[in-house]
């Protein structure tokens, strides 16, 4: 940790940076960005998206945009957990699962009501209630986890916090998966759709209302999350703790409360993703594995603990998977990412956006 601090202090002192920026025109800035790793990747992503959409049809673009937003939400939660509490959340997929399960059980009576009396107010608001219930349930589960597990560990842990947390999240994931199987059974618990409206034609493809809503939910959540982190006091305290825990404690921030908030936010976002995607991913015990895999992929791609980078990362990974699936066939999307990950780890281990987020690396 001390190492990283000195390196960054020597490598790019503030004055150097200011000198550089004053000397550059905006054209130089843009070209400089385009030829950075992040720029190359983003441009390449857009290029691939356009080419693949022309070649295979616009459904590639549509699928990318819809699932990408949700993976970004998952990855934001994961990155938040990592940068604030230094926890590698391998149980994050299980919050996705819990969110979709809650939404399913809330949506059951609402769907029945909508079927009996069509065209009421409930047809518009009902699904939102289900999604909100999933989110709140996961936030609540996150708080319980924090209190029962991670707080206890923090009291007793002496060394190897990161590894211990990793193992604990594996235990949590096993418990939640098998608890689901034990209580609710292993069958698929899905719905046909949230919003029972005709599909909307966009770019010549018919897109169901659910997908459009999922996209807008993701975008609105991201904006809301940004506002919360930037302008609310709670968000500022979270950022303070992620920058320096001891310093935050010194100025009177209750680190304990921040940890609770972080967990609630992070798990709530995963639950929101799960609940919003219930129409694509029915709730079953291991539904969370794929989203977890995707969000870790994003985390490695954009750098550990990089919250903002998770958003473009989510879309990139979604595109990558959609393209792999449509060109190579089902099943290969688990194999190909390894090559990309190896490539990233060899050349850009700190992620394509060269994360400058402080993370407590204590092994």
């Amino acid at each position, binding site marked *: 940790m001390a190492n990283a601090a000195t390196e960054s202090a020597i490598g790019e002192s503030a004055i150097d940076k200011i000198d550089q920026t004053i000397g550059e025109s905006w054209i130089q800035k843009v070209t400089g960005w385009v030829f950075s790793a992040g720029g190359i990747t983003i441009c390449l992503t857009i290029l691939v998206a356009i080419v693949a959409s022309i070649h295979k049809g616009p459904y590639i673009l549509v699928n990318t945009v819809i699932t990408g937003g949700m993976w970004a939400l998952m990855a934001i939660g994961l990155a938040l957990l990592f940068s604030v509490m230094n926890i*590698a959340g391998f149980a994050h997929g299980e919050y996705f699962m819990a969110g979709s399960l809650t939404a399913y059980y809330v949506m059951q009576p609402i769907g029945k009501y909508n079927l009996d009396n069509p065209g009421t107010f409930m047809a518009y608001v009902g699904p939102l209630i289900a999604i909100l219930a999933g989110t709140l349930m996961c936030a609540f589960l996150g708080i319980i986890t924090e209190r029962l597990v991670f707080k206890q560990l923090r009291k007793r842990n002496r060394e190897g916090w990161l590894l211990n947390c990793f193992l604990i999240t594996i235990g949590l994931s096993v418990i939640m998966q098998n608890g689901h199987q034990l209580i609710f059974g292993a069958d698929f618990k899905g719905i046909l759709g949230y919003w029972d409206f005709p599909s909307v034609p966009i770019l010549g493809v018919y897109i169901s209302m659910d997908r459009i809503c999922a996209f807008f939910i993701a975008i609105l959540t991201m904006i809301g999350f940004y506002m919360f982190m930037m302008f609310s006091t709670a968000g500022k305290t979270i950022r303070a703790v992620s920058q320096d825990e001891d310093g935050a404690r010194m100025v009177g921030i209750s680190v304990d409360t921040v940890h609770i908030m972080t967990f609630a936010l992070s798990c709530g976002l995963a639950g929101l993703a799960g609940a919003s995607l219930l129409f694509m991913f029915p709730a079953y015990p291991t539904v969370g594995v794929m989203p977890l895999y995707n969000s870790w992929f994003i985390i490695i791609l954009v750098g550990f603990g990089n919250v903002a980078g998770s958003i473009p990362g989510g879309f990139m990974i979604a595109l990558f998977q959609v393209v792999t699936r449509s060109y190579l066939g089902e099943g290969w999307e688990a194999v190909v990412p390894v090559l990309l990950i190896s490539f990233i780890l060899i050349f850009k*281990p700190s992620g394509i956006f060269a994360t400058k987020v402080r993370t407590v690396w204590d092994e």
Partner: protein
Amino acid sequence: MANEYDVQKKGIAKFLDYLCLTPLGAIGFLILMIIPFFPPFNQDYLLRWFILAAIMGAGAMAFDFSAGYIAVVNFGFAAFVGLGAYTSAIVANHWSIPLPLAMLCGAFTSALLGLFTGAISLRMRGMFAICLTWFIGIALMGLAIKMVWLTRGMLGLQTPYFFPPGVSNLYYWYPVLGVSLVTWFILKRIARSHLGLAFKAIGQNMDAAKTSGINPTRYRIINFTVSSALAGWIGAFYAHFIGILTPDFMHTAKTVEFLVIAYIGGRGTLWGGFAVAFPFIWFTEMLRSNFDYLPGINLLIYGLILILIMIYYAGGMAQFFQYLVDKYKDNPTVRWLTT
């Protein structure tokens, strides 16, 4: 085991010391050797579970070698085991070479993968290795499912048995004990050497180890490769014992099983995982057969045990054992047994 080196040993004690076994360990091993002849355990069915438990235990030792010593968790461990198993089976099927040689091929392939993985990810902190091995594990399982022409996918690959089918499981019991003993011997000899000292230093505090002139990357790669090689070797034995290989064996859930066994046994002790594997597998089977109306209850309990151990008793069973030894260390018999 604090005074391993300062006692001059003679005769049988010297030989045991060469094998890195304490008298208590040797007695435990002898008990395992004769146990199939005593009533509750002399059924073929039970012996089969014993063999599987020994394979799991040996795997847990290899897992613990990197998790406990250099604090790098191989989260695709089951896939490394499975790669060895598949390689050995395919080599033996295609060229009908002697099975022990095929097993070495399996070990070699896994070692190669371990070397490759280590070279990429072990320059960085442990989290990168966890992620990369996890991705590799999933990818290998995907490959095993997809490459039907080579692995026959989900149908399962027939593998040649060591002994003609239908023989008593007793034939496999001694080879599996041999495999476990060799695994233990190799790992413990390395752990006792200078390499082991470097591993421990890296595992406890990497920055301090760096300051004292250890090149962590090199030692971590060596450690990881050895661990992977043994994983492949054990997997190859499993392949020729079980007779049919399916990609399910490479699933992350299987890795979690190795991980839980190793951590309940006690990280960084090697023997803990092997000792725990037997009661653990027995417990699994008891739960699975007696509570078949509650599917997944055994895994639920593992998860719970893992969390409780990580929070409240990080040393696992080995810590408890050490506590007992320390409590009775004035007793000469106890001291003789444990040194």
